[in-house]
């Protein structure tokens, strides 16, 4: 038995996970000073948005009150509803989880979702009530909620203030006493799970690994279980949190491995690394694969950058294996990719990161879900791009993905939440009252309604108090139509969208109106139309521009005049040509923005 504890912290967003992690790192001497910047959230974007996106691991040496030395491996997990998949793969590397509940907020929707994931993964759960220093802390109520909503004995909960450090030493002791040590299977052949990875231009792909059996050191020959590719290990080590070289990693350890894996597509998170000498070793079981729910097209603004985009995506997927992509060609936008994401936040963050980290200017199209289109021959086609829909005469019916959402909301806001949910085609499944203050609503929604700003609106109608989590709940036949958009008679495939029939006309009118506002006036009249099949359901016209002229002579400064014209032309290059019409990039995301406002 080795003195190792592998654990993670799971919580609803903003319940103080990163602050608690920092306090643990300080107590174990891994970091010395307290700054506002949280150590585990190393990406700029995470700090800006205050959420943890990528899981990472830190090794903390700890001398317990029993006098023994322990190694604590803290594996960080993201805290947003979109990132269940990343949570689940972090859980797989652990034996235990700290379930954190904000004493002033109580158990929220993601607390429940994450707790279920941890139970499913067979982890030992340590319930912790955090932020007990806050004046609004409701400790007894939190204990009650843990029992009522999760079946976890309330008296087992530890009381902690991550901010002030209260209770953290006891928590570290609880990690030692309650979470089991990983079983020692050092004598068996190597089997380790890849739970994360990153790409470095010198070292190639660096997998982050959890060893379940055997050991690995520099010089070993390893094999990737899924594709049988073999590599020589150059180096192994831990995160302290910097990468620190070690002589050997053994069963139960968490660390990294370098083997000059240059080809980006080779390593998949969730794969198992085994010893090349024992190709029969079984893969680590039970790994949950990501299921993209939201899709959108991305296109380089400059069509010459397509090659660069391809390379950027390959590298990006290595760092975020939950993204899927395939080639796509749009008549309006040229060559690009169709990307699949776990949810809307995931999409926003991923696109932002692609732009920032890879220096790419991108046009992203309106997000879509995957529809099941059953044609008149009875064949079911899974279609993630409205422009790929067959002609309506060949469609028997369309099914759309449904999610089951769990919404926890103070009783005062139940009315507005239900009103909002019904406007989004939600069907109430059940309403419970887990405590006197709050209601737990279970709704079935078409996923398409949720991806366009529902969560933000839920927050706003509940003054920020509602929390939500969801899971896919199958497909249901919907009364759906495909709406096409025509700009000066040319259909713009990237603007096609699927709408429920009842709202199709009003939605089309708003979109057409917005398009009229963002497309600049040009030298000719531009009709903007929305149509179902061949039937126009909305139309507005952009009148021709009347004035675009450089008059002044500047005492014969012709060069200046010429440069002004060149600059103007340069600005137009950022637009996409649809037939003869220059369409600005923002037009392709209008539908999304429109949803935010209505």
């Amino acid at each position, binding site marked *: 038995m080795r003195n190792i504890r592998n654990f993670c912290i799971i919580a609803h967003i903003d319940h103080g996970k990163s602050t608690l992690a920092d306090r643990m790192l300080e107590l174990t001497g891994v970091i010395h000073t307290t700054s506002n910047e949280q150590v585990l959230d190393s990406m700029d974007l995470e700090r800006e948005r205050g959420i943890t996106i990528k899981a990472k691991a830190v090794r903390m040496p700890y001398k317990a009150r029993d006098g023994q030395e322990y190694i604590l491996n803290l594996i960080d997990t993201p805290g947003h509803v979109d990132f269940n998949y990343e949570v689940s793969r972090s859980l797989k590397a652990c034996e235990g989880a700290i379930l954190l509940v904000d004493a002033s907020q109580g158990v929220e929707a993601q607390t429940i979702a994450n707790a279920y994931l941890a139970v499913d993964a067979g982890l030992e759960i340590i319930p912790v009530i955090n932020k007990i220093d806050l004046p609004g802390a409701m400790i007894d109520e939190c204990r009650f909620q843990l029992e009522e909503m999760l079946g976890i004995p309330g008296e087992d909960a530890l009381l902690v203030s991550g901010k002030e450090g209260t209770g953290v030493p006891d928590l570290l002791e609880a990690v030692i006493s309650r979470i089991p040590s990983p079983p020692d299977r050092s004598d068996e052949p190597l089997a380790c799970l890849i739970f994360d990875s990153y790409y470095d231009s010198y070292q190639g792909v660096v997998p982050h690994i959890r060893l379940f059996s055997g050991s690995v050191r520099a010089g070993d020959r390893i094999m990737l279980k899924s594709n049988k590719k073999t590599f020589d290990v150059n180096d192994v080590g831990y995160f302290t949190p910097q990468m620190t070289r070690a002589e050997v990693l053994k069963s139960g350890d968490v660390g990294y491995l370098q083997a000059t894996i240059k080809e980006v597509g080779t390593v998949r998170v969730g794969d198992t690394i085994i010893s090349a000498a024992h190709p029969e070793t079984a893969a680590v079981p039970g790994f949950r694969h990501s299921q993209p729910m939201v899709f959108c097209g991305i296109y380089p603004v400059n069509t010459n950058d397509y090659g660069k985009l391809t390379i950027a995506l390959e590298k990006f997927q290595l760092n975020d294996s939950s993204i899927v992509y395939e080639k796509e060609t749009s008549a309006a936008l040229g060559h690009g990719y169709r990307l699949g994401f776990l949810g809307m936040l995931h999409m926003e963050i991923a696109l932002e990161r692609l732009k920032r980290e890879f220096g790419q200017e991108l046009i992203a199209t309106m997000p879509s879900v995957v529809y099941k289109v059953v044609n008149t021959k009875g064949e079911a086609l899974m279609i993630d791009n409205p422009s790929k829909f067959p002609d309506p005469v060949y469609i028997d019916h369309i099914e759309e993905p449904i999610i089951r959402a769990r919404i926890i909301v103070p009783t005062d806001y139940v009315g507005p939440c239900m009103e909002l949910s019904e406007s989004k085609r939600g069907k109430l499944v059940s309403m419970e009252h887990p405590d006197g203050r709050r209601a737990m609503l279970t709704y079935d929604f078409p996923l398409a309604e949720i991806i366009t700003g529902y969560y933000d609106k839920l927050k706003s109608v509940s003054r920020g108090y509602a929390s939500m989590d969801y899971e896919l709940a199958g497909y249901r036949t919907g009364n759906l139509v495909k709406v096409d958009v025509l700009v000066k008679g040319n259909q713009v495939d990237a603007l096609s969208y699927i709408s429920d029939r009842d709202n199709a006309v009003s939605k089309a009118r708003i979109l057409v109106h917005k398009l009229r506002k963002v497309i600049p006036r040009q*030298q000719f009249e531009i009709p903007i139309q929305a149509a179902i099949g061949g039937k126009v359901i909305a139309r507005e016209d952009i009148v021709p521009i009347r*004035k675009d002229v450089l*008059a002044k002579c500047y*005492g014969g400064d012709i060069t200046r005049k010429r440069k002004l014209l*060149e600059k103007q032309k340069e600005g137009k290059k950022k637009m996409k040509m649809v037939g003869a019409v220059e369409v600005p990039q923002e037009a392709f995301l209008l539908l999304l923005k429109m949803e935010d406002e209505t």
Partner: protein
Amino acid sequence: MRGLYVHIPFCVRKCAYCDFYSLPGRTELIGSYVQAVLSESTKYADLSFQTLYLGGGTPSLLGGRNLRTLVNGLRRSFSLSELVESTIEVNPESATAELLETAWDVGFNRVSIGVQSLSDGELKSVGRVHDAAQAIEAVTLALRLDFEVSVDIIIGLPGQNWQTLENSLETLTKLGVQHLSMYCLALEHGTPLALNPPDSLPSDDLQAELFELASSFLGREGFGHYEISNFARKGHECLHNLNYWRCGEYLGLGTAAASHLGGKRFKNRADLHAYLNNPIGQVEEVEELDAKEKAAEEAMLRLRLLSEGLDAGGLAERFGRENAAVVIGRLNGMAEKGLLVSDGSSYRLPPSRVLTSNPIFARVLLG
């Protein structure tokens, strides 16, 4: 044909829309500035010119004595005996009888008066120094002295409407001006007007409408629309400016002045003090285009001349058939779409495209 331009960078105060290089209130430097211009002129000694244009800023701020010194000095440096047109820009408040008489006396035969509008409200809204009465007085005076008179008019001043504009145009044409330059007001980056645009600023659409109404009005009054911003009675077109659009040579003296000589375009730095210290060392931004680019530039410039237009044969002659072919291809493409009018060998910008000519010119230049 070669023109001489002298830039006078002084103003009483800066107008709210102005982004030309001029400095308000530094009139004490005028004497030394004239001397600096004359020093610079020696660098290009013995060139001959057919037109002279004193622009600004406000050249009428020079006063009679400095004006005489300047012109006499230029006559010593250059051969000015062939001058057929000499223009001085004046502002109504400084276009005194004394100044205009001196101007006539030293050889100017044309004045361009910065009238801009004959509505006191509009003038005030952009910080013009003069009022309508002063403008009328200056025009009357110049005409009485037998100058060819051109006036500047701004389309799109705050509060402007067709009634006020028509009134300005009617008064000016009745007085007998032979030439009008009409510019649409542009909000140039960094100017007070751009930073703080008043609510009464006409929209682009209204500007376009006003410009079109004004253009028809002037047509009825016998003025030809010979260049995008310029209208003249027959035979009164501005030769100096025509030379710009015909891609002719010109020398610009003074700070911030631009030149086109020997196939090169160059420009003096816009820095009065640097100019005073070293008038012959201010050239920057020397540019010499290759033959293809030159052909495109000339095409772009000549298309501004609405009735004269561009002759394809002339272009091929000057730049070589092959070099002209690229731009002629572009012109033919646009002619097919109705953006230009062509008879197969010459091209013109149709009057209906004047106000939306930028994209056309951009395509002439860049394809």
